[in-house]
C-alpha cells in the first residue's frame, strides 16, 4: 500500500512522498538568499520523512553556490543518518562532485551534556592540578631563588632594576593619590560619629591605625596586583605564546631565574617602600578634614604619635612584603602557565589579577589573626 502526499514548500521546493520513495524537486537560485527560504520547510519535511529513498531533482535549479551545496549535503547527510538513501540529479557534474564531497562527512556529534557529578569531578581534578602546579612552581622558585641570593652576581640585576622602575617608581603617583584619598575618606566618615562622643580629635588615631596597620599595605598590594601582577602575567605569557620561553629553555637558561627572580625581587623591594609612601600620604589625607574642624597640625601629629608604635609600622611593612611575594609569584605563575592562542594571554592576566587580590585579602586575614594572637 502506498500513500502519496504533495505539498508546496515555498518557491524553491516541491515535496512528494509515495510509500518508501520520496521525491523533492528544487528550483530557482540556490544561493544564500534562496537557501534561507527553502531551508526550514525542506529540512522539516525531510526530517519528518527521512526513510526509504530520497530522490532530489535539481533540474530546475538555475544557480547553485556553496550555500546550495550545503543544502544538498545536509539533505543527504540527514537522510543517510536516518537509515535511508539519497541521490541528487540534475546538477552540473562539477557541482554534483562538490555535493558528494560535502556530504561525505560524519554526522555531527553533539557533545553529551555533562552532569553535575561529572562537572564537579572535572572541576575538582582541575583545582587539585592547579594547586599541585602552584606548589611545584613555588618549590622551583625557592630552589632557584635561594642559591641566587647566595650568589648575587648570578641575578640579572639589570632586569630587576627595569622591573623595579615599573613596579615601584611608576606606581608611586597612583599609590600616593589613592592612599591620600582613602585617608581623607576615613577621616570624613568617622568624624561625625566621633563628634557625638566629643572625640573629634581622636579621628587622627582612627586614620593612623587604619592606614598604617591595614589599608596602606592593602591598597598598595591591590594596585600592585592590578598594575604589576597583570603585567608580569602578560609579559611572560606573551613570551610563552611566541615560544621565547621555549627558546630560553633550549639555550639551557632556567626561565624562573631569568624571568621570575628579577620580577620577584623588584616586587619585594618596591612594595614595602610604596607602602611607606602610601602610609605617609594616607596620614596626610586625614589632616584636611581635621583642619576644617579647627585642629592644628601639631594636635593631629600628636594624636598619631600617641597611638602608633614602631611595631604597627613593621606589621604593615611585613604584610606588604608578604603581599608582594604573593602577587609577584601569582603573576609569574599565571604567565608561565599561559596556554596557546590569542585569548590565552588575556586569560592569564585576568587569572593573575583575580587570584592575586583573593590571596592578598586571605593573607591579610591570616596575618591579622596571627598578629592578634601573638599580641602585637
Amino acid at each position, binding site marked *: 500500500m502506498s500513500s502519496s502526499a504533495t505539498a508546496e514548500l515555498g518557491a524553491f521546493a516541491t515535496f512528494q512522498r509515495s510509500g518508501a520513495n520520496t521525491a523533492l524537486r528544487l528550483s530557482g537560485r540556490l544561493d544564500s538568499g534562496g537557501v534561507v527560504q527553502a*531551508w526550514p520547510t525542506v529540512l522539516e519535511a525531510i526530517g519528518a520523512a527521512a526513510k526509504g529513498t530520497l530522490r532530489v531533482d535539481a533540474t530546475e535549479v538555475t544557480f547553485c553556490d556553496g550555500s546550495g551545496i550545503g543544502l544538498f549535503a545536509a539533505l543527504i547527510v540527514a537522510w543517510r543518518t536516518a537509515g535511508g538513501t539519497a541521490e541528487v540529479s540534475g546538477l552540473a557534474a562539477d557541482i554534483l562532485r562538490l555535493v558528494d564531497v560535502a556530504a561525505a562527512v560524519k554526522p555531527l556529534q553533539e557533545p553529551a551534556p555533562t552532569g553535575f557529578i561529572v562537572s564537579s569531578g572535572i572541576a575538582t581534578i582541575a583545582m587539585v592540578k592547579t594547586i599541585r602546579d602552584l606548589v611545584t612552581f613555588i618549590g622551583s622558585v625557592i630552589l632557584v631563588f635561594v642559591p641566587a641570593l647566595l650568589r648575587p652576581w648570578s641575578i640579572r640585576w639589570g632586569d630587576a632594576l627595569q622591573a623595579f622602575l615599573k613596579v615601584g617608581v611608576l606606581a608611586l603617583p597612583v599609590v600616593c593619590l589613592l592612599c591620600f584619598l582613602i585617608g581623607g575618606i576615613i577621616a570624613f566618615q568617622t568624624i561625625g560619629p566621633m563628634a557625638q562622643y566629643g572625640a573629634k580629635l581622636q579621628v587622627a588615631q582612627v586614620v593612623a591605625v587604619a592606614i598604617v596597620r591595614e589599608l596602606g599595605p592593602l591598597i598598595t598590594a591591590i594596585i600592585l596586583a592590578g598594575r604589576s601582577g597583570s603585567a608580569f602575567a602578560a609579559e611572560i605569557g606573551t613570551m610563552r605564546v611566541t615560544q621565547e620561553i621555549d627558546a630560553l629553555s633550549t639555550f639551557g637558561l632556567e626561565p624562573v631565574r631569568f624571568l621570575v627572580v628579577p620580577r620577584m625581587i623588584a616586587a619585594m623591594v618596591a612594595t614595602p617602600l610604596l607602602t611607606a609612601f602610601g602610609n605617609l600620604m594616607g596620614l596626610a589625607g586625614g589632616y584636611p578634614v581635621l583642619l576644617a574642624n579647627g585642629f592644628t597640625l601639631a594636635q593631629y601629629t600628636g594624636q598619631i604619635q600617641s597611638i602608633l608604635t614602631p611595631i604597627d609600622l613593621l606589621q604593615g611593612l611585613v604584610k606588604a612584603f608578604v603581599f608582594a611575594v604573593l602577587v609577584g609569584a601569582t603573576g609569574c605563575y599565571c604567565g608561565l602557565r599561559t596556554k596557546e592562542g590569542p585569548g590565552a594571554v588575556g586569560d592569564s592576566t585576568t587569572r593573575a589579577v583575580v587570584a592575586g587580590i583573593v590571596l592578598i585579602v586571605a593573607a591579610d586575614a591570616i596575618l591579622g589573626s596571627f598578629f592578634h594572637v601573638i599580641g602585637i
Partner: protein
Amino acid sequence: MNAAIEPPIIRLVDVAVGFTGTAIMSGISIDVARGEIVAICGGSGSGKTTTLRTLIGLLPTVSGRIELEGRSLDLDDAASLQGLRRRYGVMYQLGALFGAMSLIENVCLPLEEFTDLPRTAMIAIARAKLALVGLGDDGHKLPSEISGGMQKRAAIARAMALDPPLVFLDEPSAGLDPVTSADLDQLLLTLNRSLGTTFVLVTHELRSIFTIANRVVMLDARSHRMVAVGAPTELREGCADPWVRGFLKAENSTQLATEAISAEKTRATS
C-alpha cells in the same frame, strides 16, 4: 558590436600603492575577468602584500583607481566600502582564524552577521564548505589543534563563507610542504572551475603560478613599477623584460644580472 561584454570583476587603472602618500609600487593596471585566476608576483620587497592590502581596502591608494564590479573602492565612503567587502573574501598569509572559535564557528561568523540563515543551516553550510577544503570532519577543532596547511584551507573556507565572486589570497603556499602546496593549488582550481570563483593571489611560488594562474602581474622591486602582465608561459618565453623571463625561469640573481647587461649592450649597439 559587443554590447553584452561583462565588466571586469576588478579593474586597476594606473594604481600606485604605498604608505603615507609615498609610492613603493606604481603603474599597476589590469582588468581581471570573472572566473580568472590572477597571480601578483615579484621578488621580496616588491610590494606584493602592500598591493593586496590596497586591493582589499585596508590601505588607500597613493594614486590611480580601483573598481570592484564597476564600483569604485573608496575608503572614505564607509557604507559603500562595507557593501563592497561582502563581495570578496580574503585569505590572510597566516590564516588569521579566530583562535577562540572552532573551525565551524569561524566559517559561521560571516554567515551570522550577513545572512538570515537559521542556525542549523549555517552549521550545515559551514560544514559543507569545510568539507570542500577537506576539513569536513574537523569542524569542531580549534585552529591551534590543526596544522598550518589545514589552517590555510580553513581560512579559504571562511573566505568563501558568503560565496563571494572574488577571493584574494596572500601567499597561500608560503610555509607549506610541496605536496600540501600542490593540494592547495588543486583545491583552488576545483573551486574556480566548479563555482566560477575569481582568485587574485599574491605569491612567488612559481609552481603555483604555472599550475593555476591564467595571468600573472609582475612587480619589479628595482624600478618600483609593474613591468609585465600576461599568461605565465608567454611571459617566461617571450617577455621583453629579461628580469621577468629570468624570474619566471627561477634563474638566480647572477644569471639575471648577466642577462640584463647583455640586453643593455644589445640595445646600445642597435
